[in-house]
């Protein structure tokens, strides 16, 4: 057993005095005829995989934009959707997706020690850039979550537009909370509560699968529930999309106001033309707008104030604060039992006071951040309120830019598209007289203006 002292002891002594009490090892024997094996580890994912994924993303985005804006083919889009679902969903396991990348980017912006991989940056950035020029074609056929929901939407029922507006605020609030929690290194909530990723992985915790299943059930009847009422990346893309260079159009030429497309969008993105207001309505609208503008800062302050109270629930999400609370409860004798984390903590030398100090500092930090989150919620609410009171005149049926996910369902309902594709010879084959009249009436009213 001399080898122990020849090789190990100098090292133990170098580590002394700690090594005298901890870390002593039974020496590995020197065998006469047996070589000490090296541990075999399976290889990680290949180097080229991220490159391939990025390339696939670029190709898919380009194709989606081409299919939606130039080719105007719902079938091609659908095929691409299936392809994307297979590649980005099932093959890639769903991670890291553009939606989740929000959190990595937030963390990287705040925490200089976190080196964000280039792939994640590109997954976050490329859809944004494409959306800036072509609208939400990413959502249409590239995003695996979108693709999944697109495909399961069997029988869609229409959500009333006012409800759509309200629920449409949730993504912004979710975005704010997700950024806050990610930037503080607390949690990646978007990933934690992603309903579909368990399907892509073909496994997951029972509760997550159940949750996903419920989402699927909802998705059968309500088009893209996640995209519309939760997706924080969709919220960003919606904003970008509203200033995009090009965008999906329902009709390839001019709208003839036939109203055939009116109910075709399962996502409630097609807006009917407006009817001019009476002067009295216009006046009250103006007054309301001014009142809202005045109330806006109050709104911000109120919600910010409210947000500061969130410091405890928010900070609870942080492991260190949770640990400090558990330890405290144990010390007061009100904890029912110890946890692994508290056991682990007690087995080390770290003083309890030190933990408390750090936890309290963190909690106070969350108090401030909660204020910001509250202000953001107030801002979102205020903006929506103001947005609702603003009126823009619309004369045609068209896809609302921020909500339209460029799925291409509406194309074929347009007589002009049918005409373009050569399915019909004349618009009157499709459009009843009544509707034609409407168009003329409208024209008349237009000329009056």
């Amino acid at each position, binding site marked *: 057993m001399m080898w122990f002292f020849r*090789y*190990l002891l100098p*090292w133990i002594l170098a580590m002394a005095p700690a090594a005298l009490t901890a870390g002593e*090892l*039974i*020496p*590995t*024997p020197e*065998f*006469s*005829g*047996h070589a*000490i*094996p*090296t*541990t075999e*580890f*399976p*290889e*990680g*994912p290949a180097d080229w995989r991220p490159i391939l994924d990025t390339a696939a993303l670029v190709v898919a985005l380009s194709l989606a934009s081409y299919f939606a804006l130039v080719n105007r083919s719902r079938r091609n889009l659908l095929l691409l959707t299936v392809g994307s679902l297979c590649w980005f969903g099932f093959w890639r*396991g*769903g*991670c*890291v*997706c553009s939606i*989740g*990348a929000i*959190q*990595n*980017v937030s963390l990287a912006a705040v925490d200089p020690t*976190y*080196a*964000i*991989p*280039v792939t994640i*940056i590109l997954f*976050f*950035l490329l859809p*944004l*850039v494409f959306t*800036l*020029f072509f609208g939400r074609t990413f959502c249409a056929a590239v995003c695996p979550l979108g693709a999944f929901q697109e495909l399961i939407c069997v029988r869609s029922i229409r959500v009333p537009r006012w409800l759509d507006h309200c629920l449409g605020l949730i993504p912004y609030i979710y975005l704010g909370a997700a950024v806050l929690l990610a930037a503080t290194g607390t*949690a990646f909530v978007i*990933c*934690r509560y992603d309903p579909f*990723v*368990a399907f892509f*992985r073909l*496994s*997951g*915790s029972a509760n*997550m699968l159940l949750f996903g299943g419920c989402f699927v059930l909802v998705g059968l009847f309500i088009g893209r529930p996640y995209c519309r009422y939760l997706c924080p990346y969709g919220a960003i893309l919606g904003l970008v999309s509203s*200033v995009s*260079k090009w965008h999906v159009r329902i009709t390839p030429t001019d709208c003839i106001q036939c109203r055939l497309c009116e109910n075709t969008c399962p996502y409630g993105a097609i807006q009917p033309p407006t009817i001019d207001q009476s002067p009295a309505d216009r006046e009250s609208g103006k007054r309301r707008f001014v009142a809202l503008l005045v109330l806006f800062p109050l709104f911000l302050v109120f919600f910010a104030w409210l947000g500061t109270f969130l410091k405890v629930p928010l900070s609870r999400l942080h*492991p260190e604060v949770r640990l400090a609370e558990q330890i405290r409860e144990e010390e007061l004798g009100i904890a029912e039992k110890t946890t*692994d984390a508290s*056991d*682990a903590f007690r*087995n080390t030398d770290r003083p309890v006071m030190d933990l408390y100090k750090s936890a309290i500092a963190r909690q106070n930090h969350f108090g401030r951040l909660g204020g910001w989150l509250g202000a953001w919620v107030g801002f979102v609410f205020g903006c929506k309120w103001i947005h609702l009171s603003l009126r823009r005149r619309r004369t045609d049926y068209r896809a609302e830019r921020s909500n339209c996910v460029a799925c291409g369902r509406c194309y074929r309902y347009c007589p002009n598209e049918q005409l373009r594709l050569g399915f019909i010879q004349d618009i009157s084959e499709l459009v009843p007289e009544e509707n034609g009249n409407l168009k003329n009436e409208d024209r008349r009213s237009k000329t009056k203006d």
Partner: protein
Amino acid sequence: MPNATQTKNRRGFLGDSMRVAGALATCSFFGYLAGRKGRNRELLWQIDPDKCMGCGNCATHCVLDISAVKAVQCFPMCGYCDICTGYFDVGYTELDTSAENQLCPTSAIVRTFIESKAGQRFYEYTIDPAKCIGCAKCVKGCALMNGSLYMQVMHDRCLGCNECSIAVACPTEAFCRVPAEAPYLMKRQAIPLVKKFSIR
């Protein structure tokens, strides 16, 4: 009419420039983020074995049916003990491989006799990754001795979730992101030993 078109053109141009500028600004910000740390390679999840307490959450909290985390043997650190506390249940009756004496619930540890020396018998213990479910029982057992058994995320199985569910459940924050070119970690104590044996 030409005036209108001109205005429209001008406005369109302005919009385009804004878009390009916005895109460029965003890109450069992200370029900064990417470039700040120099090497921005892919990151993978891994367990820092010095922080792992062997709680067993790896077996239950992985999104995979069978956890991506498995026990590994660091041979240069192993004492090749006859009475291996990682292999034998503390209530063993005989030092043999029969079921009632084994600690591992799936029999994933293979015990091989190597040689007998100065009255001591030495055995090699190898983990069969196909059977290992990552319950960390052997890791806790081995910690009573050398601690050569430890937990690692197996990258052929790990899906690389953006937020690792085991990391969230980990009581000691032992999970960390490691660069893809060095995807496995070693115990601090093992480093000199592994070096020593690899030189030989």
